[in-house]
C-alpha cells in the first residue's frame, strides 16, 4: 500500500471514545488480547459527552426491586416501541456492567453500610439509579478512560475526525479521517468498525448537548448504506437552564424538587401525572417520564401560566425545601451550575428552567449485538438504535446502555474481525478518492462561498420549528423543503482558513454536512409517522395508532441522497401494548 495514504491498519477500529466506545475497547482487549484494537475520536476521550451526564445509571440491585419491573418501566416508558428482547438483555446485563465499573474504580455514592446507594428517577417504579453525586457521567467516563490506559494493546488516534467509511463488496474495511493536529487526511483500515460517536443534539438550536454532538456516526453509517432507525424520536428534557441549555438533572426531582408555574402551582397535577405529595412518589408527578413533562410545559405556555424570561417562557424548579445539606451532598454540581451560569443559589432561590433537546432515541439500526445490516459495521450508545428506548427514553437508562451494548458490540466486532479476510486493494483507490474530494471540494475552495454558521443557524431554526415537542404535517414538510435547499447551499460553502493544522472551520463544515443528513432523516420519519407516540407528538394525529404504527421506521439513503423510509416490526415478547399510566 502506498506510503502516506494508509496511516494504520487495525483489527477493530472504534469511532468515538465516550462511554460506549471505551467499554467496547476494554471488552475487546479482555476477550481477545491478540487483536489490534484502536479508538479514533475527534476529541480526547475524556472530553466525550458522556462526561456531562449527571443523574445516574439504572441497574436492578435493591432487594425490593426486580428485573421484570425495570423491563416493564422501560417498555411503558418507550410507549411500547422498544424491542422487548433487547430491553430484557439490557436490564439483565445492566447490574453486572455497573458492578464491573465499580471494580474499575467508579466512585459510586454509598450507603452507610458500604453498599452502593440507589436513587429514584423519572418513570421508574423502584429506586434503581446508581449515582456518583450528580457527576455520574464524568466519573464513569474517567474511570473507563483510566482503565483503558491499563491495556497497552489499545491504540488511540486522538483528535482525528472520520469523514468516510470505506466499504467494498458490502463490507466495511476502515475509514478515512483528518488528523486535526497536522491536517493530514489518511485512511485507517480495520476488519470491523464500531461507531460510538454519541448523539446529534446540535441539529437543534437549544440543547443540553455539547458542541461535539453532531451525529457524525449516524451520518457515516447512513452514507455507507446502513439504515437509521426511529429518527423522529427526539427527547426534550424538561429542565434545562435558559440561554445556555445546560442540563439540570432529573435527580433534582428524584431528591424531592418541584416544578412550579408562575403562580407557584405544581402544574403537573393537571396533566394526568398524579396528585402532588410532599415527598416524591415514584412514577408520579415530577417523577413522570420526560416526554410527558415536556409536553405539559407546552400546555402551560398555551394557558399563559409560565413566567417570561429574555429567552422565552420558563417554569421554576424549586429545591429550596431540600436544604443545603442534601443539595451539597447529592446535587453539588447543580448548585455550582446555578451559581455560575444563572447567578442564583438553589438553596434559597427558584431555578428557571424550560424544556431542551437532550437525547436522540433513534440512531444507526443495530441488532441486539450492535451489528448493523452492513457487514463489519457495528454501533453502540446514543449513536445506535437497538432499540431499548423506543419512543421515549427513561432517565438513567442511557449510561448503562452505553456499557451493555458497548461491551456487546465490542465482542461482536472482535468476533467478526477474527473471521474476516484481508483488506481488499480496491479500498486504497476509494480512500484516495475521499482524500481528493476533501482537498478539492473543501480545502481548495473559494473562501467567498456560503457561510457555515449561517447555514447551521437556519438548519437549527428549521428543526426547532418542524420537529419540536409538538409537530404538524405541513410544518414538517416545509422544514424538509428548507433542509433540501440548505443541502444545495452547503455544496457551495466557503472555507477561508487555508491552514492545515487545527482547521476547525473545515471541521465545522463537515459536521454541518453530517447534521443536515440527520435533520432530513428526522423530518422524513416524522412526516411519515402519522400518529402520536412518546416524544413524537403530531397535533394533526393526536392518538397512538398501534394498527398502523407499532413499527420502527428505517431510513435508507437513496442514490440521489434523499431519504427513504421503510417499516420494521417491533419485537413484542411478554408485554402486549397497553396504556402508559403514571400517578394513578
Amino acid at each position, binding site marked *: 500500500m502506498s506510503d502516506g495514504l494508509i*496511516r*494504520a491498519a487495525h483489527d477493530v477500529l472504534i469511532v468515538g471514545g465516550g462511554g460506549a466506545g471505551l467499554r467496547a475497547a476494554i471488552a475487546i482487549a479482555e476477550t481477545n488480547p491478540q487483536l489490534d484494537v484502536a479508538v479514533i475520536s475527534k476529541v480526547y476521550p475524556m472530553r466525550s459527552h458522556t462526561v456531562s451526564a449527571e443523574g445516574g445509571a439504572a441497574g436492578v440491585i435493591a432487594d425490593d426491586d426486580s428485573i421484570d419491573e425495570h423491563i416493564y418501566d422501560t417498555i411503558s416508558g418507550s410507549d411500547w416501541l422498544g424491542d422487548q428482547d433487547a430491553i430484557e438483555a439490557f436490564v439483565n446485563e445492566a447490574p453486572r456492567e455497573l458492578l464491573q465499573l465499580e471494580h474499575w474504580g467508579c466512585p459510586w455514592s454509598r450507603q452507610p453500610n458500604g453498599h452502593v446507594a440507589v436513587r429514584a428517577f423519572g418513570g421508574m417504579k423502584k429506586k434503581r439509579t446508581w449515582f456518583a453525586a450528580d457527576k455520574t457521567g464524568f466519573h464513569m467516563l474517567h474511570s473507563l478512560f483510566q482503565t483503558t490506559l491499563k491495556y*497497552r*494493546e*489499545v*491504540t*488511540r*488516534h*486522538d483528535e482525528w475526525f472520520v469523514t468516510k467509511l470505506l466499504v467494498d463488496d458490502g463490507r466495511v474495511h476502515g475509514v478515512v479521517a483528518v*488528523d486535526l*493536529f*497536522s491536517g*493530514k487526511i489518511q485512511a485507517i483500515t480495520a476488519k470491523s468498525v464500531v461507531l460510538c460517536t454519541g448523539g446529534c443534539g446540535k441539529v437543534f438550536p437549544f440543547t443540553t448537548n455539547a458542541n461535539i454532538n453532531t451525529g457524525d456516526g449516524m451520518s457515516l453509517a447512513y452514507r455507507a448504506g446502513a439504515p437509521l432507525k426511529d429518527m423522529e424520536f427526539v427527547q426534550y428534557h424538561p429542565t434545562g437552564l435558559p440561554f445556555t441549555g445546560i442540563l439540570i438533572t432529573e435527580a433534582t426531582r428524584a431528591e424531592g424538587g418541584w416544578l412550579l408555574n408562575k403562580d407557584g402551582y405544581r402544574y403537573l397535577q393537571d396533566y394526568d401525572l398524579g396528585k402532588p405529595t410532599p415527598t416524591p412518589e415514584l412514577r408520579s408527578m415530577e417523577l413522570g417520564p420526560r416526554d410527558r413533562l415536556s409536553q405539559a410545559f407546552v400546555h402551560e405556555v398555551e394557558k399563559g401560566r409560565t413566567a417570561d424570561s429574555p429567552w422565552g417562557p420558563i417554569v421554576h424548579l424549586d429545591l429550596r425545601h431540600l436544604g443545603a445539606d442534601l443539595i451539597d451532598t447529592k446535587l453539588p454540581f447543580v448548585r455550582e451550575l446555578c451559581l455560575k451560569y444563572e447567578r442564583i443559589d438553589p438553596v434559597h432561590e427558584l431555578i428557571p428552567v424550560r424544556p431542551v433537546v437532550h437525547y436522540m432515541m433513534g440512531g444507526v439500526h443495530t441488532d441486539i449485538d450492535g451489528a448493523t445490516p452492513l457487514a463489519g459495521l457495528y454501533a453502540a450508545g446514543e449513536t445506535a438504535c437497538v432499540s431499548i428506548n423506543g419512543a421515549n427514553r427513561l432517565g438513567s437508562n442511557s449510561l448503562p446502555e452505553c456499557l451493555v451494548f458497548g461491551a456487546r458490540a465490542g465482542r461482536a466486532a472482535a468476533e467478526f474481525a477474527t473471521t474476516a479476510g484481508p483488506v481488499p486493494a480496491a479500498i486504497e483507490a476509494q480512500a484516495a478518492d475521499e482524500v481528493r474530494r476533501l482537498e478539492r471540494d473543501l480545502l481548495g475552495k473559494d473562501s467567498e462561498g456560503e457561510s457555515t454558521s449561517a447555514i447551521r443557524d437556519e438548519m437549527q431554526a428549521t428543526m426547532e420549528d418542524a420537529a419540536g415537542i409538538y409537530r404538524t404535517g405541513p410544518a414538517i414538510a416545509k422544514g424538509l423543503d428548507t433542509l433540501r435547499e440548505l443541502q444545495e447551499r452547503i455544496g457551495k460553502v466557503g472555507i477561508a482558513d487555508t491552514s492545515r*493544522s487545527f482547521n476547525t472551520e473545515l471541521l465545522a463544515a463537515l459536521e454541518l454536512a453530517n447534521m443536515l443528513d440527520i435533520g432530513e432523516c428526522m423530518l422524513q420519519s416524522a412526516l411519515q409517522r402519522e400518529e402520536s407516540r412518546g416524544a413524537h407528538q403530531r397535533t394533526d394525529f393526536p392518538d397512538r395508532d398501534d394498527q398502523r404504527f407499532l413499527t420502527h421506521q428505517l431510513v435508507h439513503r437513496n442514490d440521489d441522497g434523499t431519504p427513504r423510509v421503510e417499516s420494521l416490526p417491533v419485537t413484542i415478547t411478554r408485554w402486549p401494548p397497553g396504556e402508559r399510566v403514571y400517578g394513578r
Partner: protein
Amino acid sequence: MSTPRATEVRVYNRPMSTWWWTRRRTYFVFVMRELSSIFVAWFVGFLLAFVYSVGRSEAAYQDFLDWAATPWVVVINVIAAAFLALHVVTWFSLTPQAMDVRIGGQKAPAAAIIASQYVGLAVVSAFVLWLVTR
C-alpha cells in the same frame, strides 16, 4: 498508547522568561519564601556562633556581643527576622495541604491546623523565655 504526532507540525515553544517570578504576586511570594531559607541558615549559624562563644569564655561572649551590635550585623538580622517571619507564616499556612489530619473520620479544618501551629510556637517560645530569664 496514543499515536505520536508532535513531529508532524511545527509547534511553537514559548520560552520562559528569567523574570517569570515577578509576573504574578503568588510566584513572587513563592520565590521570597524559597529565599527565606538562606536567612534561616544564617540564623542557625548565628546561634551556633553564639553558643560556641558562651561556652568558650566570658571575653569571647563579650566579643560576640560587640560583633552582633555592629551596624551591618544588626541590619542583616533585621532583614533575616523579617524573612523568618515570612518563612513561618507561609509554611504554617501550607501545612494543612501537606497533612491530612482527621478527627473522628472528619477532615480537620485548615484554620484549626494553622492555629495549632501558632499555639505550639507560642508555647515553645514561652518555655525558652522562661528558661532564659529565670
